[in-house]
């Protein structure tokens, strides 16, 4: 039996996946934000564990400024990741993808903004990697980049660059579609 999967079905599955990832990323971002604010302005937890059980107490005790900087980087990356998935959900949920006329300005601007957000995540992850490396070289025990949600800066850069290229091709597609629509 031949099973045909339409692009609409794939998009529906993608929407469900994006919702699941978005909820996970939001919980992560919220956890990091609440932990950061609590540790920065109230006091560290008695057991010395941050959100996701990150061992941040030694960094906190070493220097509060470095601790806040790392927290800021973790929170920025987590919030940008959540906003990327939110934008994908909005695009798929509101049926802005019209397969009959796909080259719309809305999708074009979505691609460009998502590309820049992705590059920003890559930049912050890369910077955080160097920062954590410097702190580790000073003898401060730090958790891995993956646990802090800062891993894979090269992958984010690659994804951002790819999205930018697709965005520029899409921009030309919008012009061609507009020209085609105005051909009588």
């Amino acid at each position, binding site marked *: 039996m031949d099973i045909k999967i339409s692009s609409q079905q794939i998009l529906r599955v993608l929407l469900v996946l994006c919702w699941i990832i978005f909820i996970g990323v939001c919980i992560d971002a919220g956890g990091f934000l609440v932990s950061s604010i609590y540790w920065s302005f109230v006091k560290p937890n008695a057991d010395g564990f941050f959100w996701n059980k990150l061992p941040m107490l030694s960094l906190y005790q070493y220097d509060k400024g470095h601790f806040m900087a790392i927290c800021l980087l973790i929170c920025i990356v987590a919030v940008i990741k959540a906003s990327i998935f939110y934008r994908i959900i909005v695009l798929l949920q509101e049926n802005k993808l019209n397969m009959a006329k796909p080259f719309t300005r809305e999708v074009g601007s979505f691609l460009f903004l998502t590309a820049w957000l992705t590059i920003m995540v890559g930049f912050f992850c890369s910077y955080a990697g160097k920062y954590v490396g410097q702190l580790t070289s000073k003898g401060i025990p730090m958790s891995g980049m993956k646990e802090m949600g800062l891993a894979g800066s090269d992958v984010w850069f690659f994804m951002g660059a790819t999205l930018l290229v697709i965005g520029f091709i899409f921009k030309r597609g919008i012009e061609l579609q*507009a*020209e085609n629509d*105005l*051909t*009588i």
Partner: protein
Amino acid sequence: MPIIVNLDVMMARRKMSLNELSEKVDITLSNLSILKTGKAKAIRFSTLEAICKALDCQPADILEYQPDR
């Protein structure tokens, strides 16, 4: 755009309404309106042929070139 569409002039000369022309050339009113108002980016030969046939005119009667000043 330096290409001017004089469709309204020819329609007035032939005393033909937009609705009537739309029926004769089998083009939607909105598309004819785009053509008439000069918003169109291109015109197909088949459309031009149908309009010339309906208005009994030449392409040059409908299209005119005026260089940008």
